[in-house]
C-alpha cells in the first residue's frame, strides 16, 4: 500500500515539474477510448484528448500498480499461499490492484471532461451529523431495516467519528468509534492514521463481535497528476484488525482472529455542491462482506464495492445516498448537517 501511495505521489511530482501542457480536448470519444481499449492501456483516453503528459503518467501509474501487484502475487502463488508469506504479500496485491484500478478510473474521468465540473472538496466542518435509513438485504440474517447515525467531530488534526446502525426489525446493533489524526497534508490531499473500535451484536443469532483496528489512509488530490483530473481524488487505506467473537453460549470460548484491512476509492466533486465516490473495500467483517460473482467459481477472495453520493442543498445541510454490493446488498439514504469550522483541509 505504501509503495502504491508513493507511486501516486511521484506521479504528482512529475506533473508539477513539467512545463504547462497544451489545452486538452476531452469529450465523448476520448472518454469511450478510456473505457474500452483504455481498460488495458491506461491513459489512452487522455492521449486521444491530446493530453500526452497526463496520459503517460497514468500509464506509468498503471504499470506501477501491476508491478506492485505482481511482486505480491508471485511469492504468494509460488509458495501456495504459505502461512508466513501472506502477511507481506497480500497488502502489495491490494495496493497494486488499487493503483491500477484508480489510474483507469482517472483516465475515464479526465477524458470525459471531469475537470469541467470544477469540483473542490468543501472546507472541513467541526461537526458532521448524518441521520439515515439503510436497507440491508442479506438472506443469511433476519434484518432488513436499519436506522443509521453517523457523526464526526473535528478539531485541527484530530477527528472523532462515532456511528451506530440499529436494526428496527431484528435484534442487531453495530456501534463504532473511530479516532483519526492527520499527519500530513499536500494541497487538498492528506494522510490520516486512525484507530477504531466496533461492537456488533447479533442478538437473534446468539453471537457478538468486537473489533479493534488501526489503519493509514492517504488521499491524493489528482489535480497534482494532471489538470484534467482537477476535482477528483484517489484514496488508499491499509490496516490490520483483531476481532473477538463471543458465541454467547455457556462454556463456549471466544475466538480471536486477525484481519487485513484494505480499501481504495476514487471520488470527484461537482463544484462544492456534490460528491461521488466509488470504492472497493477488502474487509468482510461488516454487513456487506465479500462479493460472489455468481454460481460459478470465484467467491471467497474479494471484499465489496460501493458507490456513495452527497448533495449539498445549502452550506449546512444536504442529502446522502449509498449502495454497496457484497455478500449483502445495501442501499442507504440520509440527511446530513455540517457546521462549525473544522480547521485546515
Amino acid at each position: 500500500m505504501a509503495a502504491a501511495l508513493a507511486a501516486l505521489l511521484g506521479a504528482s511530482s512529475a506533473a508539477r515539474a513539467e512545463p504547462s501542457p497544451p489545452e486538452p480536448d476531452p469529450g465523448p470519444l476520448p472518454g469511450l477510448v478510456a473505457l474500452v481499449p483504455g481498460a488495458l492501456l491506461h491513459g489512452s483516453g487522455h492521449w486521444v484528448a491530446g493530453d500526452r503528459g497526463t496520459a503517460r503518467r497514468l500509464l506509468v501509474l498503471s504499470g506501477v500498480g501491476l508491478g506492485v501487484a505482481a511482486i505480491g502475487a508471485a511469492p504468494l502463488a509460488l509458495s501456495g499461499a504459505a502461512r508466513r508469506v501472506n502477511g507481506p504479500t497480500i497488502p502489495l496485491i491490494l495496493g497494486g490492484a488499487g493503483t491500477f484500478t484508480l489510474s483507469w478510473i482517472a483516465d475515464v474521468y479526465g477524458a470525459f471532461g471531469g475537470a469541467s465540473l470544477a469540483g473542490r472538496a468543501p472546507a472541513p466542518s467541526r461537526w458532521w451529523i448524518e441521520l439515515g435509513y439503510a436497507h440491508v438485504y442479506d438472506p443469511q440474517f433476519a434484518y432488513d431495516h436499519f436506522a443509521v447515525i453517523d457523526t464526526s467531530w473535528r478539531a485541527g488534526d484530530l477527528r472523532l467519528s462515532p456511528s451506530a446502525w440499529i436494526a428496527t426489525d431484528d435484534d442487531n446493533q453495530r456501534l463504532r468509534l473511530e479516532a483519526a489524526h492527520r499527519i500530513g497534508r499536500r494541497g487538498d490531499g492528506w494522510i490520516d492514521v486512525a484507530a477504531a473500535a466496533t461492537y456488533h451484536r447479533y442478538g437473534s443469532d446468539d453471537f457478538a463481535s468486537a473489533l479493534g483496528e488501526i489503519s493509514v489512509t492517504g488521499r491524493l488530490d489528482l489535480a497534482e497528476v494532471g489538470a484534467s483530473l482537477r476535482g477528483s481524488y484517489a484514496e488508499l487505506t491499509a490496516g490490520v484488525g483483531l476481532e473477538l467473537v463471543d458465541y454467547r453460549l455457556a462454556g463456549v470460548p471466544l475466538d480471536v482472529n486477525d484481519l487485513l484491512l484494505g480499501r481504495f476509492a476514487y471520488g470527484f466533486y461537482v463544484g462544492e455542491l456534490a460528491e461521488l465516490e466509488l470504492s472497493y473495500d477488502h474487509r468482510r467483517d461488516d454487513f456487506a462482506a465479500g462479493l460472489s460473482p455468481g454460481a460459478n467459481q470465484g467467491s471467497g477472495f474479494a471484499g465489496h464495492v460501493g458507490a456513495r453520493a452527497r448533495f449539498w442543498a445549502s452550506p449546512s445541510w444536504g442529502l446522502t445516498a449509498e449502495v454497496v454490493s457484497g455478500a449483502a446488498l445495501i442501499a442507504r439514504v440520509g440527511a446530513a448537517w455540517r457546521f462549525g469550522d473544522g480547521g485546515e483541509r
Partner: protein
Amino acid sequence: MMRAMMVLALCAACVRPADERALLDFEVGVGAGDGVEVEVAGGQAAVREVGAAGASLWAQAPVLELRVASTEARAGWLLDVANCMPSAVLSLPDRTVEREPGSRPARCRFAVDLAAGEALTARLAPPDADVVEPFRVVVMGDIQTGMDDVHEVFERIDRVPGVRFVLSTGDVVEDAEPEEYQAFLAQVARLDVPFFSTIGNHELTQDPEQWHRLFGRYNVHFAFKGVSVTLLDSGNASLDPILYDRLDGWMEGAEAVHVFGTHYPPFDPIGVRSASFRSRKEAAKLLTRLAAGGVDATFYGHIHSYYAFENAGIPAYISGGGGAIPERFDGVGRHALSVDFDPAGAEARDRVVVGLVRVD
C-alpha cells in the same frame, strides 16, 4: 428501467449463488426407465440410469434403503451400485442377495427378480451398520491438479488399518472438465472403500450440474454406527440459507457423535490470508449453530495444508493435501487424516481422535 432491474436481479443472484444447487438436492434419489422405477430413501444415492436390464447408482451413504417397482416381471435385473461399502449386503424382506462375482470392493452388483406391479424394498448395508462401536474413517480434500497421481494417495489410504470409508471436503477436480471427472472415476475405482464428498469451489468452474448428474447431492448427510456425518456445499464461500434449516434438523436428530465438514473454513486460522467464508458474520452464525448443536469436530479443505485448531470450542481440522498445489514450507506435503470414532467416549476428545496420514 429494465436495465436497472437486470442489474438488481444479477446482484440478487450474487447474494444467493448456491440456491439452485441446494434445491437440486431434493431431486436426487429417483429415476425411471423402461417401466422400472427406482427410489433411494433420503436421496442417499444418485440414480444414474434405469432400464429394463438394470439400474446404475452412485452411493453417497454407507446404508441405502431402496425401492424398485416394475410394470413387468424381470428376472436377473441387475442393481449396480458404485461407491458402496465393501462388506455391504443386499437385504430383501425375506432373504439376502449374494453379490455378483468379479466386482471391485467398492462396487456392488446384485441380480434380483422383479415381480410385475409389486415394489421390491431392499437395504444395502454392511452387517454391522447399526452396531454402535468404534470405527475409523479417512478425511481428505483438494485433489485438483494431483489427479494423475491420486492413486498414490488412495493406495496409502487403503493401507490404513480398519478404514471404512473416505470423507472428502471437495475440490476433487481443478477445472471441472468432463475429462477430469472421468479421470477421477477411474482413480476412485481403485479405492477399496467408498468416497463420500461434497463440492468445493473448483467444481463450479464450469457446469456445476456435472456433479449432480454423476454423484447426486451436493450436501451429504448420513448416520453410521452411532456417528452422524454432515458435509455441506460451501462452494461459493457461503452456505445457502436453505442449508441452515436442514442443518438444524440434522443436528437435532444426530447420533452420539456428529462431525461436520465443508470446503471453506468459516475462519482462516491465518487471518490475513482470509481463505474462508466470504462473510465473517455468516461464519460466526454457522459456528454458533454448530456449537449449540453439539457437533464434535469440524473438517475443512480449500487450504492445501494441514491445520489443527479450534473454533467456538469445536476441534477444527483443515486437510487439503489430496495432491493440489501445496502450501510450501509447512512440512506436510500430500496427506489425509485418519479419524477414529468412539460413540461411547466420555469426553468429546475421546469420541473423535484425529491423526495425520502422510503420503509423501
